[in-house]
């Protein structure tokens, strides 16, 4: 299985876990993001995710490289879904395996923080009564203060 993927297919967190696991794995941390039924007081009907796919794939690969530099013992996989997602469906799935739990948690957390900072994917929220494009971070992979912030959050 490919460690990074941007796809309209349903995500399979269990497959990511299998992909990162080795006989030396003592800990696997995973994260999935799901479409919730409410956002900022609005009843969410569904989301549509749009991606600049080739750059999104490269940004995910970059995140894996950054994580490998910092936590060489951790094996990481990150998949992001695009297209229309219903409430309860998985938009992003991350798995991180390592011999000990600190690195697995840190790499997993770092990955989702960086996804939100630098991966060119956008969320279009359709709620009861309207729709809105969600806009988060100005993407800049070279912004060291953003990267430091992700690292700080990841390293408890």
């Amino acid at each position, binding site marked *: 299985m490919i460690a990074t993927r941007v796809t309209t297919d349903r995500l399979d967190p269990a497959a990511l876990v299998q992909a990162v696991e080795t006989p030396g794995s003592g800990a696997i941390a995973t994260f999935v993001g799901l479409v919730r039924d409410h956002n900022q007081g609005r009843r969410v009907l569904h989301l549509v*995710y749009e991606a*600049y796919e080739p*750059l999104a794939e*490269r940004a995910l690969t970059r995140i894996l490289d950054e994580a490998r530099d910092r936590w060489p013992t951790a094996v990481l996989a990150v998949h992001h879904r695009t297209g229309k997602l219903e409430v309860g469906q998985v938009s992003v799935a991350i798995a991180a395996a390592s011999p000990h739990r600190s690195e697995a948690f840190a790499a997993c957390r770092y990955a989702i923080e960086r996804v939100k900072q630098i991966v*060119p994917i*956008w969320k279009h929220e359709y709620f009861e009564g309207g729709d809105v494009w969600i806009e988060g971070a*100005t993407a800049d*992979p070279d912004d060291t203060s953003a990267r430091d912030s992700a690292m700080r959050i990841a390293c408890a």
Partner: protein
Amino acid sequence: MRVTVRLFARLRELVGAGELSRNVAAGAVVAVVWDDLAREYPAISPYAGSMSCAVNAEYARMTTVVDEDDEVAFLPPVSGG
């Protein structure tokens, strides 16, 4: 020279197209492509301070020089996850 302009999310909707072909002078930087586009579609101007750009699907700067047939993308603040 011709370049392809790619637009995403709300920028795409404001312009009404995800892909455009535009002429710019040889040696132009990304900022020139943007400025031309913002003159054509003033509604996108507020994104000047918050968007990112890419050339040929690699992050770039507004000062990056573009070449013939390059794909220049303008990206609103991202919201994946």
